């Protein structure tokens, strides 16, 4: 009976890549500081920090949702989303600093029009200032990011108990599941109150300060969740290729693939619902959001978004064999993460710079920084404890899991 490789050791190559990407990102940052127009510079950093933070936080959403659903299948690789969710501790403060810089230091009313003095006179905007004001922005941003980080940390701490043999037996197992359930429900409720509603309005939708759409937050959630699942898939495959995660196999990958497939379709469903209803009613106050995206400079990005995030997943991930194929899932995961990055680009930059869509070296450079950070710190988090929660009450179900 061979014992499993529980302890992940970060390969030198992984570190090299991470430092390389971070270095490239820092370089892009410095070059951008001098060469890029101010709003493009800030906007690019803003959408990147929000996107990468939200997709890492999606890992904790996945853990909490499966915990509440009493899922067993995910336990074999659960430490992977746990490690990814730890990124919120780093990306949270980064995103916070960026947002606070825009609102309090830069007073950037080009991005947040509601910061300007005109807003106090504008018949529409002046009515919104009860929600769109710096104080509420600050308080809510601190609360949102702070509680994600705090409750996420509590979930991870609980998970550490599954490394201890004391968890064996029915009573400790029941109590463990119960305590997980309580924290997971708190996280989910807070998640619904932030990502599922207020936070995308406050951070992103308010860039188009006059415009509104009730679907906006659910759409943002779908976009970040499907990319979050893809990120989990990438790390699972990486670890498998390195010979770790012995209990995880094609069956688990198949189910991760189903999530990637299903939520790509779900995203499309929300995309279509929002777009079609606005198109159909054809009210100028609403169509203003899509006008330059569909017909103006963002036209290419707009359709690329649909092709990558809908057409490709539905065609490629439909079959059973595709979802069980490591290469294809890797390819699709990269594609989906890229696709929704594009989606965030058009959501945010499409509102900041309406007459110019220039996805440039700078966007990729800043993204490289965040990717490098994810590789480095998720790697460290993975190495910091066993890869398999050995005494988790549902681990055996996960081991014999088959689809």
């Amino acid at each position, binding site marked *: 009976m061979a014992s499993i490789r529980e302890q992940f050791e970060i390969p030198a190559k992984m570190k090299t890549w991470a430092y390389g990407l971070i270095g490239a990102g820092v370089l892009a940052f410095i070059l951008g500081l001098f060469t890029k127009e101010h709003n493009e510079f800030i906007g690019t950093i803003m959408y990147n920090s929000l996107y990468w933070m939200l997709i890492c936080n999606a890992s904790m959403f996945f853990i909490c949702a499966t915990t509440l659903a009493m899922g067993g299948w995910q336990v074999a690789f659960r430490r992977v989303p746990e490690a990814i969710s730890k990124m919120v501790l780093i990306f949270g403060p980064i995103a916070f600093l960026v947002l606070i810089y825009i609102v309090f230091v830069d007073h950037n009313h080009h991005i947040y029009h509601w910061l300007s003095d005109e807003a106090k006179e504008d018949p529409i905007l002046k009515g919104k200032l009860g929600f769109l004001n710096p104080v509420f922005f600050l308080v809510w941003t601190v609360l949102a990011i702070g509680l994600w980080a705090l409750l996420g940390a509590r979930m991870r701490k609980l998970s550490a108990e599954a490394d201890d043999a004391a968890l064996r037996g029915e009573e400790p197992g*029941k109590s463990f599941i119960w305590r997980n359930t309580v924290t997971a429900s708190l996280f989910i409720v807070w998640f619904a109150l932030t990502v599922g509603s207020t936070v995308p309005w406050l951070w992103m939708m308010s860039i188009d300060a006059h415009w509104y759409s009730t679907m906006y937050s659910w759409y943002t959630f779908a976009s970040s969740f499907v990319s979050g699942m893809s990120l989990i898939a990438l790390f699972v495959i990486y670890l498998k290729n390195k010979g770790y995660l012995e209990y995880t196999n094609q069956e688990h990958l198949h189910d991760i693939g189903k999530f990637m497939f299903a939520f790509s379709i779900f995203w499309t469903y929300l995309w279509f619902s929002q777009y079609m*209803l606005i198109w159909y009613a054809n009210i100028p106050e609403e169509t203003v959001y899509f006008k330059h995206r569909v017909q103006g400079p963002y036209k290419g990005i707009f359709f690329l978004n649909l092709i990558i995030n809908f057409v490709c997943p539905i065609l490629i991930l439909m079959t059973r064999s595709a979802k069980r194929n490591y290469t294809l899932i890797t390819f699709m995961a990269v594609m989906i993460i890229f696709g929704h990055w594009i989606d965030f680009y058009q959501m945010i930059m499409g509102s900041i710079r309406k007459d110019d869509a220039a996805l440039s070296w700078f966007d990729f450079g800043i993204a490289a920084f965040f990717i490098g950070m994810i590789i480095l710190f998720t790697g460290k988090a993975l190495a910091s404890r066993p890869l398999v929660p050995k005494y988790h009450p549902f681990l055996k179900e996960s081991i*014999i899991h088959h689809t």
Partner: protein
Amino acid sequence: MHLKYESQLREPLVYGDKTYHQVTEDIVRPIEAKPTKLWYVGFFIAVALLMFGVYSVYREVTYGIGQWNLNKTIGWGWDITNFVWWVGIGHAGTLISAILLLFRQGWRTGVNRAAEAMTIFAVMCAGQFPIFHMGRVWMAFFVLPYPNTRGPLWTNFNSPLLWDVFAISTYFTVSLLFWYSGLLPDFATIRDRAKTKLRKYLYGVAAFGWTGSTKHWQRHESLSLVLAGLSTPLVLSVHTIVSFDFATSVIPGWHTTIFPPYFVAGAVFSGFAMVQSLMLILRKVFGMEDYITLGHIEAMNKVIVLTGSIVGCAYLTELFMGWYSQNKYEGYTFWYSRANLFSPYGWSYWGMMACNVISPQIFWFRKMRRNLFVTFFMSVIVNIGMWFERFVIIVTSLYRDYLPSSWSVYYSPTPWEMGFYLGTFGLFFTCFFLFAKYFPVIAVAEIKYVLKTSGESFKDGMDNIEEKGSEEFAHEYAH
């Protein structure tokens, strides 16, 4: 090695020391016995209600839509409210059979048969309303797009009402097929046990010559998977398109982009509440407590609190946007016509909030989820609340529109409007009583499928597996 194992921490799905034969006995016996007095009483009441409904519809068809209290401003009232309500209820069955199948939720086997039956009956009830709302119901075939001699009179493909025709008829067809194909092995079981020639003949015909051969099972399994795949988007599409009936318009309170997913969540919410009401009665009357366990009821209550909260999130989103948009009309609809308790229809909005959002929150507590009385009470409350939701959406948006000169007086239904609604209850329960008497209310074959993994007595035998360390376990059983 394929191992029948699940964690000891999970509750058994079947209680008692059951064998396959015992399962068949328990579920099929009520079909073979004579109907009880209680059954006759219930059936008679249902048929009487149905007859009242038929009479109400007769009046409406004979004398026209004027038999209802609709007016120029409130052109949709109880009728469309009831339509959306019934369609919504018709969502749980297919959600349980298709989506929970994909999520591999073992507990669905206890409740799927009755839930699917309920779905089909609910969609049948729903269909009555738009058909009779046409007024000249003999022209109903006009909704079908086909080359005709009516000149340019062709269906309007831009209309979500027409999409409804396609969505609902497709949904009905697929749900019926799914339900029926699941019934085949169970019909064959009843046929094989039959003591009278007539019963043997009738169930034999219904079973399509099922023999239980490996080939049959193989075809059956692949058919189930295909139908589950087809049904999953359908569960979403039907109520999405129903929501389009409202959301494609420019009526304040209707035109809001969150409508499609929020309608779907609401539909699942009300559907589960209806399943819950029916299941609590069924398990009591037929003594099915071993198969529809407290665990099943708890799981459904979890779905109810989840979907109720999603719906709540959507209500608050809409209300917030009614203010945030600073659109006067949206603001008026949401903050005056609805959220203001003292406006003419304010009571219906707060009734909806209390029933759908506030009260289901008690299901965060395990004790409440497992309390039969609370569950039954809440299931009724939720269905009342979901009826109010549709009433609120339809009437409070319509009764004061952009043009104050066409503001409507208070709308209240006539007895015939109510009679039509009561009649659909009659139709629903008539069908359901017949179903409960002649069909196996629990899927016998599917219970047998989970018995050895999740049956109480079988789980007791897994103790030695539970004792093993994970590495030893993986070494012996993983594939």
